[in-house]
């Protein structure tokens, strides 16, 4: 099945192409847009990006699989990126991650319709560890018993990463 970009995405890509001497640098933004519009980066979505930017499919595949925020499989609406790196680990980050896992019924790296749970490497909010980033929202100084409240808040108002693109 061949996929297409929306008109808005096409014009955004066109505008970005004018900011660089070649089209290749736009591949990262185009992949973000493809993920936003098609949910995940299927082979067809990669072909769409390759066709749009006149790039080899292999190049787009290489880029899409190198960076961790691109996903090749469908995921939840909201992605919870919970940090467990050193600063968070020192202040019970793993216990918070475990609380997310049991509350959501997901292991890290897994998804259901609403949520994807990711064990993230440092999200640069170490002074408020343990912390999680969910789209444009930050959850800071989390304790394990706050996790149900955070999930309830995100169920009420999801914060999908695709809003940012």
């Amino acid at each position, binding site marked *: 099945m061949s996929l297409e970009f929306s008109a808005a995405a096409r014009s955004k890509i066109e505008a*970005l192409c004018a*900011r*660089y*001497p*070649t089209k*290749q*640098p*736009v*591949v*990262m*933004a185009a*992949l*973000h847009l493809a993920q936003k519009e098609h949910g995940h980066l299927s082979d067809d979505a990669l072909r769409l990006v390759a066709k749009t930017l006149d*790039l080899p499919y292999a190049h787009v595949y*290489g*880029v899409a699989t*190198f*960076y*961790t*925020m*691109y996903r090749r499989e469908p995921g939840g609406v909201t992605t919870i*990126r919970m940090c*467990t*790196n*050193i*600063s968070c*680990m*020192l*202040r019970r980050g793993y216990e918070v991650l475990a609380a997310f896992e049991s509350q959501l019924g997901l292991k890290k790296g897994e998804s259901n319709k609403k949520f994807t749970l990711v064990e*993230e*490497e*440092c*999200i*640069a*909010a*170490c*002074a*408020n*560890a343990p912390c999680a*980033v969910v*789209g*444009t*929202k*930050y959850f800071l100084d989390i304790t394990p018993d706050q996790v149900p409240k955070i999930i309830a808040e995100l169920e009420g108002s999801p914060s999908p*990463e695709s809003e*940012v693109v």
Partner: protein
Amino acid sequence: MPADRSFTSVKLVTQRFGNEKARTLAGYEATGGYGSLRKALAMRPEDITAEVKASNLRGRGGAGFATGVKWGFVPKDAKQVHLVCNADESEPGTCKDRELMYWDPHLLIEGMIMSAHALRAVHNYIYIRGEMMREYVVLQKAVDEAYARGYLGKNILGTGIECQLTVHRGAGAYICGEETALLNSLEGERGQPRLKPPFPAVKGLFGNPTIVNNVETLMNVPLILDKGAAWFAELGMGRSGGTRMLCVSGHVEKPGVFELPMGITTRQLIDEVCGGVWKGRKVKAVIPGGVSMPPLDESELDVPIEFDALQTDERIKPVMVRPDKQFDLGGGRPLRTMAGSGGVVVLDDQADIPMAVWRIMKFFWHESCGQCTPCREGTGWLEKVSRRGRCSGFSPSSAPISRRSSGRIGPRDAHRFVRDVRARSFDLGARGVRPTNPAG
């Protein structure tokens, strides 16, 4: 550092923290923003570089290289030059650039316009980390505002100077904080480092001379040009001008992001700024500038957090330090660590060191870009060895394994910067600390 210098007296890059309105163009201008831009654009580019050189501004991303000197490496006859802002803050323990961009995006833009003028750079980029979604929105909005007001574009403020600025969003890769990997990523490649030389200042983005500077570094430029190089140099210590953003995390009572006088010691930082080690405990180890930096132990806390001092330990014997070399002081004990990115992580005397060592190794293993075999395979082995250490204690035989694995990462390898931490962190674990959690 004079004893009477107050920890809170100087606010340069954090002067607008807490002011929600300063994020908008109007709010920024109301607090003096863009006030000295016209003056800076009237200066000759060489004069701006000379001023920055004289100010002793040093790169705040981690290496501490003199900014003005770096700018001077751009060939004089270059046809096209680029300025790239490295906003890919991802060194664990470091959380200053994210805050700086969130509170004061226009200061970064103003700093980039001035610096780009000094470099005669027209097409400039901010490479922001993919996970910083809130900050990306803030920054993009600020750039749009600056374009609309004529601070960016073909003919800024009618001076005939052109400055284009594009925000380029990453997608999750620690290695893209390394400048040549960042440039590859900006070109739409996988973010893998390039061999140096050629250095980016000679052949960088799209094959043109390119200067890559950290967010905090660029934000200091408007203040230097406004108040003068001498004032800025005087604020600092030794060969490091200005203030320093320090992010304290881990086992202290009051963690936080602070703008502090250059040269504050680790002990002052912990006891006087952060309310001491939490729960009345003592310090076991401090990582002084992000996890790539070798840690300090309790006896080493009185050395200033400054680029030169941390490399040598001035109390023992003053030596000249080249930025690219760490000296052994002969009879004295060299510290051989670095001030790095300002991410100070404090571990108390009950901290599970084997667990911490393992977590750092796991990070490097996860983030290895896979280009060079010694790192791709070696970090995996270090993770395995340290996992074993975490579960059953470090044996004398584990240390040589770690040294062998990390020793294979040769100096010509593009990411040698992670080598030392592996050895040093591991030594800390091997030096003796039994696991506090035998079940692992």
